[in-house]
């Protein structure tokens, strides 16, 4: 058939191109041939489906679908996640795999957009070998994949997925997030700010223009207003995700002269913003809060006194992390392999994989040592409590996660060439979360100054 000829021609042409330009990036030529023949076969005849079987026998390998950003501005956040996954999976396999089954991961780049991510998810889920999806980084992709996970009944662990909208209906059977969500994450910043700077009057916000940025602004503002009603928001800017240039936004922030500049920009956007805002005096004229500031500590020279955190407990240098030999070993191995210590997205990914591993162990204990089905695995995740590299990840009955929140300010450290986090506080995971089923914003509006007074103070976590 002409189709077959064309596809072979195109692919052969491609393979010669790869050789010509030396674009071969670790892809064995045989793979390409295989895919070409596979494609041609599919076009001409249709491919033979992988028949899903009840996977009670231990399989030869355990497939994981890992979703993260490996390109674009978001890759600055996504690549540490991928690196950590590589490292942890190598470690797991070096010890014989998960319950004796070696792990192999397929990475999916989230930068291709919801459409491609959904297509990839379907493709991976169609293969019975892939038992678990670790998906995803972006809240938008998580929200798009969640209904799919329920329909296809594939256990899906959000390794980042901060949005509180993800599990809000409390009906999820297959979607998990062993992390905090936007509510505790940004309420924590409001409380910390008011402890450290009780006289704050004016606040400006510059967040990325999508759910994460808007939700964070809403939650942070609501918490501030509940705890200190006279606070005024003087500017709210939402530059497009991936904007390279913030000069005009910086001028706008400067003319507003706020006491506090709050931002949950992340990835390369955050690096760009810091590099452009620092010389223009934003960090000296206002108290700046960078909610994801820890990710850039090793890359850009942040001045002292910037409020930063890790959206959870995942700081590799926290007292708990340092007390855990596994974590110290992980951080050193990470530094040796990737040239940088693991920033918190790396820790989040590592913790998510530890969570998956623990779920397999629990599921096999429950069913008498047999290899668990997807449903049994999801069952084992529900209500679980797992020790991670940096604390514990508790899963509530509504599948939402409880993780402690660490917040602090940047300080110079003698031991490291880059600033670290000092004057820290560690809020208990459940103390900043509404009850299951409660509307988060309604809950925040009920907060009183007494609520904040009962919580630990800056500097209490040492």
């Amino acid at each position, binding site marked *: 058939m002409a189709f077959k000829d*064309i596809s072979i021609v195109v692919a052969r042409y491609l393979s010669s191109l790869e050789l010509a330009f030396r674009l071969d990036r670790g892809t064995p030529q045989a793979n390409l041939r295989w895919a070409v023949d596979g*494609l041609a076969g599919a076009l001409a005849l249709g*491919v033979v489906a992988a028949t899903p079987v009840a996977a009670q026998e231990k399989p030869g390998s355990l497939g994981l679908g890992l979703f993260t950003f490996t390109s674009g501005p978001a890759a600055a956040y996504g690549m540490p996640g991928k690196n950590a996954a590589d490292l942890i999976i190598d470690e797991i396999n070096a010890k014989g795999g998960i319950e004796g089954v070696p792990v192999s991961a397929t990475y999916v780049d989230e930068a291709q957009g*919801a459409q491609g991510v959904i297509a990839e998810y379907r493709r991976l889920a169609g293969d019975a070998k892939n038992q678990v999806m670790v998906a995803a980084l972006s809240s938008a992709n998580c929200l798009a994949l969640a*209904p799919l996970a329920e329909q296809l009944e594939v256990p899906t662990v959000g390794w980042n997925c901060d949005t509180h909208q993800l599990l809000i209906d409390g009906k999820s059977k297959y979607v998990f997030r062993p992390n905090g969500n936007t509510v505790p994450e940004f309420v924590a910043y409001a409380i910390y700010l008011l402890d450290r700077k009780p006289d704050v009057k004016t606040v400006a916000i510059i967040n990325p223009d999508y759910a994460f940025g808007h939700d964070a602004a809403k939650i942070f503002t609501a918490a501030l207003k509940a705890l200190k009603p006279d606070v005024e928001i003087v500017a709210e800017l939402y530059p497009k995700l991936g904007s390279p240039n913030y000069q005009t936004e910086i001028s706008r922030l400067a003319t507003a002269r706020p006491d506090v500049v709050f931002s949950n920009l992340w990835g390369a956007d955050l690096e760009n913003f810091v590099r452009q805002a620092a010389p223009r005096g934003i960090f000296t004229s206002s108290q700046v809060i960078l909610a994801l500031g820890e990710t850039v500590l090793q890359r850009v020279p942040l001045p002292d006194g910037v409020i930063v955190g890790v959206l959870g407990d995942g700081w590799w240098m926290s007292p708990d992390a340092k007390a855990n030999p596994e974590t110290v070993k992980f951080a050193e191995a990470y530094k040796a392999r990737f040239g940088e210590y693991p920033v918190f997205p790396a820790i989040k990914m590592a913790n998510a994989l530890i969570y998956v591993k623990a779920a397999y162990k629990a599921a096999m204990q429950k069913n008498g040592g047999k290899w668990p089905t997807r449903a049994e695995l999801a069952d084992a995740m529900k209500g679980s409590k797992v020790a991670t590299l940096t604390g514990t990840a508790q899963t509530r009955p509504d599948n939402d996660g409880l993780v402690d929140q660490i917040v602090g300010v940047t300080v110079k450290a003698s031991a490291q060439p880059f600033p670290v986090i000092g004057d820290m506080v560690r809020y208990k995971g459940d103390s900043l979360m509404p009850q299951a089923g409660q509307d988060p914003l309604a809950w925040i509006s009920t907060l009183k100054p007494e609520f904040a007074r009962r919580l630990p103070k800056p500097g209490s976590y040492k």
Partner: protein
Amino acid sequence: MRTLLAAAAVLTLAVLPIAAPWLQFVLTLAIAKGFAALGVAVLLRAGLISIGHAMFFAASAYAVTFLARAGIHDLGLLLIFSVLAGALVGAVAGSFLVRYRAIFFAMLNLAVSMVFYALCAKLYGVTGGTDGMAVPVPTVFGLVLSEPAFKSVLFYLSLGLMVLVGVSVQRYLNSPLGHALAAVHTNEIRLEYLGVPVWAVLLIAYVVSAALAGLGGAIAGFAIGRVVPDFAFWTASGHLVLIAVLGGIGGVPGAFIGALFLELLHSAAVTVTDSWNLIVGMTLIIVIMFMPQGVYGLFARKEASNL
């Protein structure tokens, strides 16, 4: 012979997802893009290149979610109304765009679509911003279907529509109105001397093409389950033109052949390389330079017209 070939191709498509279930999504998406590319191809007949047709694709997909929010849950009604919405947007935009030719037509289409894109991306409160909106699973003739069942219905419906709409568009192109398009391309002024209102000919073509793009967008929205502003970004419009040209604008099947070819190749390519754009770019240039009739030109008789 050609009818037989087409029937065999459609039959193969219908059977493929039974053999490989994951292909169903890919094929649905390919057919959806095929509709939109067909829309672009209709205008290309008149020598008009639009780098903005993703706007209508997105407009209909957004229309589906807004209509569903307004309480319409039937698949048929949603499709009809959303395509009408796409056509309406097309009529409004087309009424002033069809006055322009050549590069100005291309650029104005781009301008309008980018305004649309920016609005979708920025109006967070209305459109959900860059996160977009979820497209719900509709009912089919009052039946509440599970998601997988609906996806199968959607696929076979798209396949049916592909044949039905394809035949209708073919008839349109073979009608005097359709031939007038090619005449606009070759000699517009002569057409005017003959008393044919070029403006009306082009506006009809524009609305038809917008409706086709809209149909594709609505199907894609249902298939993906989410509509995002990126549906309307200029590179998406570029890809629609690309599909049309790759398939060959000579005949209706070209658009669908182009879309199927590209989507299937993509599914195969992602597993081995992430340089997908490189592949597509090279293919595009080679096809334009050496196969001006597109992939379809390999099947069609030599009569097909080129760019």
